[in-house]
């Protein structure tokens, strides 16, 4: 039986859970969100990614109901939720600071929202226990927040926001306060819980690795606008702009002029060097300014001239040894510095290259992406 790929955004029949329609939000003269359209589907794990001040938090707070759009509408399951106050929305939020009530125990924190609904005691007890099992908090039932570690607090915050079984869960930098190792573990835990509960998650983060790991789709934001919305691999392999390419992962950008024939493009980038070759689906006019984006791991490094479509000679300027991989900074005669990555399959003592070595760097004509802006 073939596994059906989860991709509701490609299915025109699918009704989105959330729809932003021409939403603009201004604070005084400052425009935080600028005429934004976005669909988020049920069961999605949707990541809003961008630098601080790009409007991602404002977008999330509008979903939670703490801000109302200046213009446009936000729909949840087809209904406009513009005027619904936060305490009446089927949307819950996990706060960046966790916002755990310091005077209440773990149990009371998780039960807080359920008690507001006026559920009977038995139902609350069942649901809270279920949540504590899900987040592995059974042992900490009677502890107060200050008696918990960072990771445990994070789990209480998650359990509390999930307890009311919201249609949509908002997570504001949920892992920002955790150290690296714990963060990585927790990312998988989050994905696991999202899958188990089937809740739609919208996560705000400035950490691109986190967004790539957890999300089904990533939206890259800049200055109140969505720059690109796509699955993690599409964002990485096919960025639509230098901004996205640069924001997600490491990249070499070479600026030049395009000479297109069919799907092949020659990029004139230097007076003294031969043009670089790339393939593209886009159409560039003659001598149009273009940017060639090439990921360091797709750039090979060798002592002899290789046969690849693009090969350039240079000198090693710097080596960043990261254990599993090394990044070589190679300076070309034109002054450009290109980063090339090699996996360290051998022990360090037997490394090929060292500083000041003359080397060749190379990549195929399909490895690079040509961008217009």
């Amino acid at each position, binding site marked *: 039986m073939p596994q059906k790929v989860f991709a509701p955004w490609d299915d025109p029949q699918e009704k989105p859970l959330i729809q932003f329609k021409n939403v603009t939000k201004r604070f005084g003269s400052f425009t935080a969100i600028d005429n934004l359209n976005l669909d988020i589907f049920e069961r999605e794990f949707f990541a809003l990614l961008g630098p601080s001040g790009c409007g991602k938090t404002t977008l999330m707070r509008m979903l939670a*109901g703490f801000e109302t759009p200046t213009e446009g509408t936000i729909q949840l399951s087809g209904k406009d939720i513009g005027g619904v106050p936060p305490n009446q929305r089927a949307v819950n939020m996990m706060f960046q600071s966790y916002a755990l009530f310091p005077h209440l125990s773990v149990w009371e924190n998780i039960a807080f929202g359920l008690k507001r609904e006026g559920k009977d005691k038995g139902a609350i007890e069942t649901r809270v226990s279920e949540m504590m099992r899900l987040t592995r908090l059974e042992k900490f039932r009677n502890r107060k927040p200050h008696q918990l570690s960072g990771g445990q607090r994070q789990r209480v915050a998650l359990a509390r926001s999930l307890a009311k079984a919201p249609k949509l869960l908002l997570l504001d930098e949920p892992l920002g306060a955790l150290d690296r190792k714990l963060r990585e573990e927790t990312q998988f835990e989050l994905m696991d819980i999202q899958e188990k509960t089937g809740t739609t998650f919208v996560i705000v983060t400035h950490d691109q690795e986190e967004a790539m790991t957890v999300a089904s789709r990533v939206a890259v934001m800049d200055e109140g606008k969505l720059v690109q919305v796509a699955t993690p691999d599409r964002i990485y392999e096919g960025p639509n702009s230098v901004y996205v390419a640069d924001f997600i992962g490491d990249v070499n950008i070479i600026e030049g002029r395009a000479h297109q024939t069919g799907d092949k493009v020659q990029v004139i980038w230097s007076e003294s060097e031969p043009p670089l070759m790339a393939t593209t689906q886009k159409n560039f006019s003659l001598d149009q300014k273009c940017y060639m984006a090439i990921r360091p791991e797709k750039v090979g490094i060798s002592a002899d001239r290789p046969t690849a479509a693009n090969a350039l000679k240079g000198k090693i300027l710097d080596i960043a040894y990261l254990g599993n991989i090394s990044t070589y900074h190679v300076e070309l005669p034109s002054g450009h510095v290109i980063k090339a990555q090699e996996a360290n399959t051998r022990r360090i003592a037997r490394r090929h290259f060292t500083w000041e070595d003359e080397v060749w760097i190379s990549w195929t004509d399909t490895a690079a992406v040509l961008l217009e802006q």
Partner: protein
Amino acid sequence: MRRLILIAVPYLWLLAFFLVPFLIVLKIALSDYNLSIPPYTPQLDLSAGWQGIKDFYDALDFENFTFLTSDDLYWKAYLSSLKIAVISTFMTLLVGYPIAYGMAQAPDEWRPTLMMLVILPFWTSFLIRVYSWMGILSNEGLLNKFLLWTGVIDQPLIILSTNTAVYIGIVYTYLPFMILPIYAALEKLDGSLLEAAEDLGCSRLSAFWLVTFPLSRSGMVAGCFLVFIPALGEFVIPSLLGGSSTLMIGKVLWEEFFSNRDWPVASAVAVVLLLILVIPIVLFQRNQERQQEAER
């Protein structure tokens, strides 16, 4: 050597002018009344050596404390002090909380000004602030004039020289002590806690009762003790605003000392007052420690 001097100077000063005087009070409280000056016996005669100390010790007794329990006046004064301090502390809390809350909710650029407005009365003379109410509360005072003019009453209210005036005086003069710790607690409150409560289904009002109010409790407790402790031993307010029927222990002590010149009884009154104060002071200390711990 320098360290020794550094410790010794303030240490000896406090020993000489705080601890020793206090021990003297304790000793006199256990001595007998004598009309000679100083009007108490026994006198410690160190020149008589060991025998002197023994004589001195033998002559001490609890007679003055027995006297305190036998005379209605004293325990009534303690009880009435307690009652006045408790009621006025509660009233100060009722008046102070909304002000502290308003300050904590005020726009950021307003807060330093509001803070200054609360602290300013603290720097002005206590005596003058109490005095300022005398002209307002007296029978032909401004409050009565105003009420008569509006027609709310047709007979002037007798407020000055009653316990009501004492309550007003305590609330008025100690209000900053109540506002400041509550404001400090409310200001520290993380705004995202209230958003979280709303997100989980609370209305504004229930978010206040379930989150803001319990989290400002330590501030309220601190404020209450800061008002209660000095109010219990208060002298100026009952003697200016209270009447002859207003019994407060600070006033009794003053009169025992200056009018009756009965030093041993005055000292015994002081010792008992201190014993009563130990309980709230210890509770206050514990509240502060717990608060510091919670902040860590």
